[in-house]
Structure formats: C-alpha cells, structure tokens
C-alpha cells in the first residue's frame, strides 16, 4: 500500500485519514456515469511544489483542518465503491474520507527538481500509490501526500482515481482547498446523479479509442505487457513559438498542443516498428464543468505513412479530422452494464490536452506552486503524452510522456536531434 521508498530518500511516512467535518445524511449514493466507469483503471497523479512560505509554521492539524471543511462539499470523494447486484460499481457516500500521508524528503526542493529532470519516475515517491482494490469497499479513491523537503518547501501529492473525474476536476478540488485555506466558504452544489447518454445503440462494435482489458475483477489497475516509464521535459516560450512557426502552414495556426503532439507523433512513429496510424486525442470540452469525466475523446486516423509526412499535415489531422468517440465509449460500457474493464489512455498512442487546466491557480496562503507535474498511472501499452501548462513565469509548456521503458531513451534522443527540445 505504501510504496517502498528509495533508500531513505523519502522517510518518516505517517498514514491517517481526513473526512468531512459534518455527518452526511444517511444512505446517500452516487452512480458513476458510463464515461466515468470507462476511465476506472486510470489514476491521475499530480504534484504541486510549494516554496517555504506556503506551509511555514503549520502543524499537521492546521494542514488537515481546511480539508475537513472542504470535504463537507465532496461526499462522493469521501465514499467507497460497492457493486450493485448487476455488478455495476457505485459509490456509497459513507463519510470514510481521503487517505492522508505525511512524509519527509532528505533533499532540498531545488536538488529534487534537478533530480527529476534526469529521472521523472522518482516522482512516484511523492504521491501515494494505492489503487482501488483488492477490497474496493475499503479503498480510498483520493489520497494526499504532503512531503516536507529539507529546505522547508512542501510538495502536495494528489492521487485521484480517474473514475471520479478528469484532470480539470482534480485541479478544481485543490483550487477550492486553497480557497478554504484563505477563509472562503466553498459553495458547491452537491450532485449525486450523473447524466448518462440515451439508451443502448445495438450492435455497435467497440470504438477505436478503447481496448478491453482484464477482466481485472476488483483490482482496478491496467496490467501492462511492458513496463511503462515516465519522462517529462519543458518547452519554454521561445522554443514554443519557434516550433509553432516551423509547423504552421499557409493560413492555419496550430495551438501549442497540436504542434507538440504532431512532433511527438512523428518521433514515436520513427522509433516504433509498426507506426501508430491511429491516435486518441483527449481535450477539454467547451464548457468544462470541472466535475466528473467531461473530456472530449476522439480518434485521428492517418491514411499515409507518418514518418514521411509533414508534421503540419499531422497537426492538421489532429485539429480538423478527429472523430468523436464519446458515445461509442459510453456504449461499450453500457453493453454489459459497467462490469467490463476498459483502457482508454494507452489503448492507442494518446495525446491529452491539459493546456487549459488551472493547475497554477492552487493558492496556499497567498503562495502559488513553483512547479506542477501531472502524470497518469495505469496507462496502456501504446503510451500517452500529456501537455500541461508550464510554470507561469516561463510561459511555456510541460510535456509528460509515459511510454514503454525501452522507447524512452530513443525518443529523448529523437526529440533532441530533430527538434532541439529537452
């Protein structure tokens, strides 16, 4: 349950729980939507790095108290999964709460940030790594880890089961925490019923964007054929505009996400034996409610070899020729009433657009995070790439790529030589 710590790098780990301060009304239940259940094998892991001032002078109880207040408005997060008689999972809102870990790191934050440039997988020690299972009724869906660095800085590590919501809703949860710390009252209407799309469309085959996994039973994690490794790099503002201008053709301007994704798609195609002709794109919908799984999921099919293509063609495909997959995904779940297990991220090479995510709006006592990193655990074998905003003062983007470990070095090399990144 608690990940083994690399030889004392992270030490003094303490485990407890934080729940809502007030009792919930009894017998409250939340039914996850079909889209929610499609994402249940994925876990969002976010790490927010704060400087010394944010948490200076605070005791553990001081840190826990705003969570007790905030969680009054998040009964779903505080609940635990059960299975209905049909086998479909639902959440019993029983006030159980989120798991709370306290840890210390023997490095200063600056040393740590240097270390993860070489080895991004070290970041897994800053987030709790418990999955939902083997007993889903006793597994928390959200876990928080507060790690104190030698210099006094603090990292807030969030483990967020994707079945609860997308990265935008995870960011919203922490942003609201910041508001509670500042003394504001979170005014969140509590909804327990998710909206599902209309009735089952018969005889639809599985969409391209998903892959059937398992069955994993009550161990909600993807089983990979190859070990996945994460690596991240930042693209600063200058590099970004250079990249965009290189890629932009005639009249079309491409967003940073499209530009970066096109480039990476081509690099991955170069290093893989069989080119990834189909990729999945996930991005925020126009009016993202930051509550639940509301991403736009689409696939892009390339009809020609990727390696020889012009990256602007690839970017063009991503921008304009994506097929919306949401209904099909929901249908795949509806077919057997949510019992089966699907993989979305990594079923094909997946690109997730988190440009608009409000990660840097998490304000703790007037301090914003110096750096935010997000990754996903449970990505399938084809890999996934996440494009997040970089630290505001740099103005660029952070890219987190999760790929089979044997591809990582080659990709890093490819990106360096072709695109002067990294």
């Amino acid at each position, binding site marked *: 349950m608690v990940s083994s710590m690399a030889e004392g790098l992270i030490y003094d780990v303490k*485990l407890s*729980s934080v729940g809502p301060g007030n*009792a919930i009304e009894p017998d409250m239940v939340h039914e996850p939507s079909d889209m929610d259940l499609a994402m249940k094998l994925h876990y969002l892991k976010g790490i927010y790095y704060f400087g010394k001032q944010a948490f200076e002078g605070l005791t553990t109880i001081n840190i826990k108290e705003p969570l007790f*207040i905030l969680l009054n408005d998040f009964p779903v997060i505080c609940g635990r999964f059960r299975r209905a008689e049909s086998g479909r999972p639902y959440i019993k809102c029983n006030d*159980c709460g989120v798991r709370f870990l306290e840890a210390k790191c023997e490095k200063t934050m600056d040393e740590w940030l240097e270390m993860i440039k070489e080895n991004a997988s070290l970041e897994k020690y800053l987030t709790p790594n418990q999955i939902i299972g083997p007993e889903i009724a*006793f597994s928390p869906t959200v876990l928080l880890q507060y790690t104190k660095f030698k210099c006094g800085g603090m990292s807030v590590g969030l483990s967020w089961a994707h079945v609860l919501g997308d990265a935008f809703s995870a960011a919203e949860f922490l942003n609201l925490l910041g508001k509670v710390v500042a003394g504001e009252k979170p005014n969140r209407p509590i909804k327990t019923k998710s909206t599902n799309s209309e009735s089952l469309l018969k005889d639809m085959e599985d969409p391209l964007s998903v892959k059937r996994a398992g069955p994993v039973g009550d161990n909600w994690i993807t089983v990979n054929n190859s070990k996945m490794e994460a690596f991240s790099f930042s693209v600063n503002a200058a590099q970004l505009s250079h990249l965009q201008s290189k890629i932009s053709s005639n009249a079309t301007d491409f967003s940073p996400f499209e530009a970066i994704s096109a480039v990476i798609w081509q690099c991955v195609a170069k290093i893989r034996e069989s080119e990834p002709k189909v990729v999945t794109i996930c991005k925020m919908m126009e009016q993202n409610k930051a509550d639940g799984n509301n991403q736009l999921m689409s696939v892009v099919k390339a009809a020609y070899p990727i390696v020889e293509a012009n990256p602007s063609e690839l970017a063009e495909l991503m921008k304009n020729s994506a097929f919306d997959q949401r209904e099909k995904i929901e249908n795949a779940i509806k077919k057997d009433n949510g019992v089966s297990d699907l993989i979305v991220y990594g079923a094909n090479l997946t690109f997730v657009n988190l440009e608009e995510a409000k990660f840097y709006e998490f304000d703790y006592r007037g301090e914003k995070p110096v750096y935010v990193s997000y990754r996903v655990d449970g990505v399938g074998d084809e890999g996934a790439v996440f494009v997040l905003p970089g630290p505001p003062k740099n103005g660029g983007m952070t890219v987190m790529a999760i790929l089979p470990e044997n591809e990582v070095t080659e990709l890093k090399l490819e990106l360096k030589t072709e695109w002067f990144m990294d």
Partner: protein
Amino acid sequence: MLPKYVKLGYRYLVDHILTFLFIPIMAAVSIQILRLGPEEILTIWNSLQFYFFQILCSSFLVTLIATVYFMSKPRSIYLVDYACYKPPITSRVPFSTFMEHSRLILKDNPKSVEFQMRILERSGLGEETSLPPAIHYIPPNPTMEAARGEAEAVIFSAIDSLMQKTRIKPKDIDILIVNCSLFSPTPSLSAMVVNKYRLRSNIKSFNLSGMGCSAGLISIDLARDLLQVHPNSNALVVSTEIITPNYYQGSERAMLLPNCLFRVGSAAILLSNKRGDRNRAKYKLVHVVRTHKGADDKAYKCVYEQEDPQGKVGINLSKDLMIIAGEALKSNITTIGPLVLPASEQLLFLFTLIGRKIFNSKWKPYIPDFKQAFEHFCIHAGGRAVIDELQKNLQLSAEHVEASRMTLHRFGNTSSSSLWYELSYIEAKGRMKKGDRIWQIAFGSGFKCNSAVWKCNRRIKTPTDGPWQDCINRYPVHIPEIVKL
C-alpha cells in the same frame, strides 16, 4: 382506572401526613380559644407571671438552641455552573473510517475486525464521536507528548469555558480536584492546571486516578467534604478521561470493546459554599451516595486492566458485567431510597418487604417508583446495555433516559464526564425548571456505583453555548437496534 386513583389518593395522604394531622389539631385549638372569649384569654395571660429573669433565661435558651442548630447544620453546597468540552471537527471519527482503519491495523485478525464491526453496529454511538489526533494514525501513535497534548486541549478548553461563564478569576479558586482514571503523569494533571492558570500557592489540589468512570461523583463527594471544612470557599472539579495512551493495540476481543466505545470528552464544574453564590448557582447538591462492591471478588475483577498474551495492555471486561452492575445498583438504591423517596413509596416498600419475609416470599419485590422522587435522570452513558438495564430496573420511560441515549450517540462513552454532557442536554432542551430534582448515577471499575442528587436552584434559560449548541435541534434521533455499516 380505580387502582390508579386509589394509588394517587394513597400517595397524597401519606406524603402530606403531617399536614393532614396538623390541620385538625390547629382547628381544634383555635375553636377552643374562640370559645373561651376575649376576657378569659386576658385573665389566663395575666396569670402567667413574667419575671425578668425567666424571660432572659428563656430567650437565652432559644438563642442557644438556634445557634447550635445553625452551626451544626451542614453547609449548603452549590454548583455555580459547569462547562463541557466540545471536540473539534478534526477529531471526528465516522463508523466507516473506524472500520477501515481497524481492517488495516488488524489485517492479520479478521475475526477481531468482524467483532469490532458487530459491536459498533449495536453500540448506540453515532457518526460524530471523536478520538484524539494520535489515534487517527494507522497504526495509532500514542506518545506521552500526544497524551499530554490531548489532556491540555480537553482540560484547558473546558476550564476556559467555565471561567467565562462564571466570571471567576484563577486566583479565587481555593480547591482543585482533577479526576482522570488512566493517564497519570508526573507532574499530575492537577499540577498542570495549577501551572497553566497560575493558581494560588496555597491551593488545595487533588488528583484522583485509577478510579474509573464513577470518579466524577467521587470528586464531587470529595469537594463537598472539603467545602464543609473550609468556609467561604469554592472548588473547581475537572472530570475527564484521556484516550491517547489507552487505546488497545492488540487483538483480544474482550479488550477491543473499550476502543469501540470510549471517546474524547471532559467537564469542568465549579462548586461553592459562599453566601454570595446562593442566588446565581444553578444547582444545589442534596445527596451523594457511594457504593463499593470491591469486597466481592467477581465484582473486583469485572473491569480489569491487564496484558494480553502478546504483552499489549488493555482493559478486560468480563461477561458478568451487567449482572454485577445490577447488584451494585440495587445496593445503591437501598441506601439512597430512604433519603429521597416520598413516604408513600417507602411505606409500600416496607410493607412488601415485611410481606415477603413473613407471609409469602413469592411476592414480587416492590421496585420503588423513583419517578416520584426525581424529574430528571442522568445515567452514565457507559454503553447501550447499561442504559437499557437501568431503564428496565427503574421502570423509566424513554424520555427519562433520552439524555443518556443521546449523549451516547453524539459523544460516545466519555467516561466520568458523560453525566455532565447529559445534564447539558436536558438544559439545552429547555426541560430544566427551578425546583427540579436530578439523579446522576455512575458506574465504574471496582466495582462502584455512585449517585448524586441535585436540586435546580434557579430558573435556567436555554443555553446558547455548550456542546449541544449546533446539533440540539437534530435530537432526539431514533437509534436503530443495528446500524447497517
């Protein structure tokens, strides 16, 4: 119908027998005097020769008797006010969290986890009880520092609240008694209070430890005795139980029970024998009756602190607990009955007793109707079984035991301070009226059964502060036999 009125008539007759005898006699005397006529009365009056010396001696005698009477009368002890600790929301422990932690801590003993779940389902506790911060950890982290931290938080908070209510200054406190059964550091908790509030150097301080859940009333008894000896004084009594160092870390079932029931709580009470407090005090102490069954081996061992086979220390509750509690209660009632019951009930009890001895021992023993003697009952919220047993034995209605059940639900078993949470409930519901009599009953290891009888001294406005302030409107709640977890 008829027996009811017969009983009512009997009650009025016997309870007011003196009045019933007095009135006819007075009537007869007045009629005699009136028949005599005014001149004859004057003649009788003049015939009584009054010598100065006789008048002086008589008045001296009267003054002497009056003085002896007033001097030897025990001082009236008043409860000026009291305050209970309200735990912060960060200490809250819902059932689901308790069970999840239990599964993680006792992962090698699923039977023990199952046992705890069954206890919790039937315990009568609610979802808002509190445990101290150290016990929230997986596994719990009971250091001495954490225990002291809990003691400081609960005791100082209650005392601060009491000082604000009574407007008493620390320098005015003459006697300090702190009772906490299972945590007894050096320096003592009473020394901790003296240090924090800078109490006087000639304070009479006492620290009672090891005396169980009934120690609260033992402290009140001690305070009363001290206030008889020291005139014009007041006494601060603090009752609490510190959970942190006593959370059982093993897996023996009989010893896991306290973990499921004991919760954080404390109360601070100000007693006084000063004339000036007579009008502002809330309650007057009428009786304290203490019964100790320790002479019986089974009673002595029924709540026993010991090490389990793995060497972990915990409190073992024997299966005979309820039977022994019943016997201790009977003992206590036998002593307190004559002190508080009206004459009608005592006579009935006497007749039934004589009847059973002489005529027919198959007669059911008469259980005096204590509802005649008291308006309110505060039964220590030791557990659902205790309250059920007492309700049955004393033939009390659901409303009489409501304060106890609701305190168990909202705060759990807070040990010696639970009686004060219950009293606070009755006040918060606006049910306390001037002249009401209250019976507090506490049970504790030993095995002891202690009672205190109070009388409400003045009109009590429904309080706007106190531990029930934010939730009293939700109470009473229906507590199901078994809560489905």
